[in-house]
């Protein structure tokens, strides 16, 4: 009854679509209007924390190697850390703006985890290609997030942050267990 790995990726992708839409709406209306209802302020950090929690069963049930397990564990920890820190900042329990750095930290660690645990080249298979794309996307996202911390009202950085989540969703939706990429599939992955 365990869902296939690609199905799990699609479920996470749906979460990222919703998160991206919320962040895009926040970028359009501005933080002040978005936070007029307190529950909306908790939405993005709450979803990030929840997705971090859901990453644990993914780590336990869907990883076939130690390095794969460590990568998923790193994502789970950093997503929960970033979500929790954002919740603390919104609530007012955390005062220092340095806690904002947990988000770029989560993205940088996740990007590194993607690139380190994918040991095959770009065109080995679709999964390998998407791992490389995701890793570099997260690195670019780290820079965008740092810009968002320096200039929190910048529509460019806020929109870029939201678009990053929507792009992550597209990449996750493209994932298949085994599939070629641009017509390439390594014989080692089951291609001819």
């Amino acid at each position, binding site marked *: 009854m365990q869902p296939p790995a690609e199905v799990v990726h699609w479920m996470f992708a*749906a979460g990222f679509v919703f998160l991206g839409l919320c962040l895009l709406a926040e970028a359009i209306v501005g933080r002040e209007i978005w936070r007029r209802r307190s529950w909306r302020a908790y939405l993005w950090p709450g979803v990030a924390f929840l997705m971090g929690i859901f990453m644990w069963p993914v780590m336990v049930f869907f990883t076939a190697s130690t390095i794969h397990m460590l990568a998923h564990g790193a994502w789970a920890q950093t997503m929960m850390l970033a979500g929790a820190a954002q919740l603390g900042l919104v609530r007012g329990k955390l005062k220092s703006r340095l806690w904002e750095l947990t988000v770029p930290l989560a993205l940088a660690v996740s990007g590194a985890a993607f690139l380190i645990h994918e040991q095959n080249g770009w065109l080995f298979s679709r999964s390998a290609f998407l791992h490389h794309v995701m890793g570099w996307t997260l690195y670019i996202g780290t820079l965008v997030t740092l810009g968002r911390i320096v200039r929190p009202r910048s529509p460019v950085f806020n929109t870029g942050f939201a678009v990053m989540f929507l792009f992550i969703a597209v990449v996750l939706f493209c994932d298949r267990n085994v599939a070629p990429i641009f017509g390439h599939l390594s014989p080692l992955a089951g291609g001819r």
Partner: protein
Amino acid sequence: MEGELVRQRAEVRTRPSRRLTAVSALGPLTALAGLVWALVQPYRITMLDPDKYSFWYLAIQPPLLVILAGAVFHFWIVPGLLADLEDAEGRP
């Protein structure tokens, strides 16, 4: 003359701002993207051929997930956000 000016100003005031239009369009555009995806890759809609697929592939169909995410956002998040935006912009 004055009556005409008042009518013109009222029309200007009731025209939705770009921000209102943009926020209102996000959900429908997302749902439209999901619909287009379903038309381009109909094999992703597994319910069209239910005997061929197992439970998870029937329960999780990516284009429908995109439509669902757009719908949840549109019907849950947008109404309150538009009300707050209108309030902030001083609209009736």
